[in-house]
């Protein structure tokens, strides 16, 4: 199937800053690509280029079969964009906002009105429909903004950090809406700093850093890339840590890591639950008391950290410094 979104070698510089340093990506029709990266990685710039808001210095992009640089206005009638900050007019009511957007998509006043009513209902904004958006909560504004992006039922949607700054309840509600859209066949490019969000919503993930796509794959593929399972043990007594490290060494398939403050030891393993049982027996036989133990699969957090050498904006809480930073491919200008 032809990709609904295709970008080739996009480059954009702002002064000395190379915001996009050759971004290439493609999103097959009906799928979700999660663009994952820290602040300033180039996620938003990529979205702005693909939604015709910004002209790249070089490169090529096609959205819904239309060349973004040659026919921007054609592209605009086929896409919906919802940004990081709710792009609604706060002095207009929710209904007026949606109706205005409908009319600017060249709908008739009647159709724009009908569509606004439909969307307000769908997004549970019908009670607040005739209040100015100024009075809306953050979550309501974000919903209104997403509704505005859906006015013409665009086949391709761009969501730029749609849930940044939302509380968990609103985030979950928005995720459900996004899932519904995808079920209906919308192709979606989603940027996020939240790994959990990418894990849940995206079929494919592209990790972006310093204006480049540095890794690409499904969440599972990316996780597999940095290795398998680990056993994590939290030792009760600080004095037991050294002995515990020695006890675990035979089971480790790599270097163990230690977080001194939390007395947490992590060892890469293979063999799953059996290893976990063996480790428990071993520690027990040495009378080492443990607070917690578990078998962990890598998270996207780990993937991110190992790919970029730094955590996401959410900053993984004080990680041990011995955390290996391997596999920094495509990371030319970094040290």
């Amino acid at each position, binding site marked *: 199937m032809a990709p609904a979104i295709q970008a080739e070698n996009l480059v954009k510089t702002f002064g000395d800053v190379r915001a996009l340093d050759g971004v290439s990506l493609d999103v097959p029709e009906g799928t979700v690509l999660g663009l994952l990266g820290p602040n300033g990685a180039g996620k938003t710039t990529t979205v702005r280029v693909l939604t015709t*808001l910004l002209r790249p210095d070089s490169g090529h992009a096609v959205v819904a079969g239309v060349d973004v640089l040659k026919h921007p206005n054609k592209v605009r009638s086929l896409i919906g*964009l919802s940004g990081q900050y709710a*792009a609604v007019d706060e*002095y207009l009511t929710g209904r007026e906002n949606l109706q205005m957007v409908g009319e600017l998509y*060249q709908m008739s006043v009647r159709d724009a009105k009908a569509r606004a009513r439909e969307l307000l209902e*769908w997004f549970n904004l019908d009670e607040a429909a005739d209040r*100015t958006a100024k009075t809306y909560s953050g979550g309501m504004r974000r919903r209104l903004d997403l509704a505005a992006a859906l006015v013409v039922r665009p086949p391709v949607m761009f969501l730029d950090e749609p849930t940044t700054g939302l509380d968990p309840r609103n985030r979950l509600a928005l995720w459900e809406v996004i899932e519904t859209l995808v079920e209906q066949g919308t192709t979606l490019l989603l940027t996020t700093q939240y790994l959990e969000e990418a894990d849940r919503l995206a079929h494919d993930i592209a990790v972006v850093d310093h204006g480049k796509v540095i890794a690409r794959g499904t969440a599972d593929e990316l996780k597999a890339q940095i290795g398998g399972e680990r056993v994590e043990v939290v030792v009760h007594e600080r004095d037991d840590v050294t002995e515990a490290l020695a006890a675990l060494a035979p089971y480790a398939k790599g270097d163990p890591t230690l977080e001194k403050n939390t007395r947490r030891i992590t060892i890469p393993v293979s063999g799953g639950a059996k290893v976990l049982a063996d480790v428990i027996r071993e520690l027990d036989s040495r009378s080492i008391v443990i607070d917690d133990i578990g078998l962990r699969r890598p998270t996207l957090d780990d993937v991110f950290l190992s790919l970029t050498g730094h955590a996401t904006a959410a900053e993984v809480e004080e990680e041990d410094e011995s955390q290996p930073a391997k596999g920094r491919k495509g990371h030319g200008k970094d040290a």
Partner: protein
Amino acid sequence: MTTATEHAIGGAVPQQRHGIPAMLHDSWVIAKRNLRRMTRIPEIVVFGLMQPVMFVLLFSYVMGGAIQIPGTSASASTYTQFLMAGIFAQTVTFAVAGASAGIAEDMTKGLVDRFRSLPMTRSAVLVGRTLADLVQTAFTLVVLMIVAVLVGWRIHEGFLKALAAFGLLLLLGYAFSWIGALIGLSVRSPEAATSAGLIWLFPLTFISNAFVPVSSMPGWLQPIAYWNPFSATVQACRDLFGNQVGPVTGGWPMENAILLSVIWSVVITAGFSWLSVRKYRSAVG
């Protein structure tokens, strides 16, 4: 959130307009938006009114008795006849501040990204803004004329000519709101846009025939005042309202003020709308 199966994807964009009809349609949608905003923030309209009303009262009651129009005897009521065209014209030029602040504000908000991601005419954001400002200017002008009548201002050339003068004032206001648009696009901060929009209006409106007779100014300043686009509209209004007191001085520009007023407004509108739309396009990529 309720189930959404009935909101299935599909259905393309309903109508496609092109060229001028598209521009007019989109501008009208944006103008509606700006007019709605004005009703939601009535302070803007109210304060926009207070300043010129205050000028009318201060100039006619405080300074009126002291300023003598050549060829007449100094009197507050003579000065009121002379003054009003000047106040009206100054008021419409203050539309600059509204347009510049409004557009600067729009540019700083995410909303402009929404507009730019829609299949709409680029210039509509600016045209819609200036059209809404025109409506506000017309409203302000009507209220101001009522106040003027209350302090003794009268028209002497009939209703139609007065209406023509009203039209010239709106044309000037429209031209100046495009200057405001360019300022708003250049400054990009609503606060700076307000002062940048206003500051140059004082020399422009005072080095003119609006408040005092030009013949009382130093010789080197007089040609500037006579050729000032603003003076043309003031003189044209005095002619059409029948408010000319004393002889017309200043030669060709003042003797052909109506024609010159139209020319100036059209030239300013054309020039500044072209610059603004170009600036908007380049600012937004």
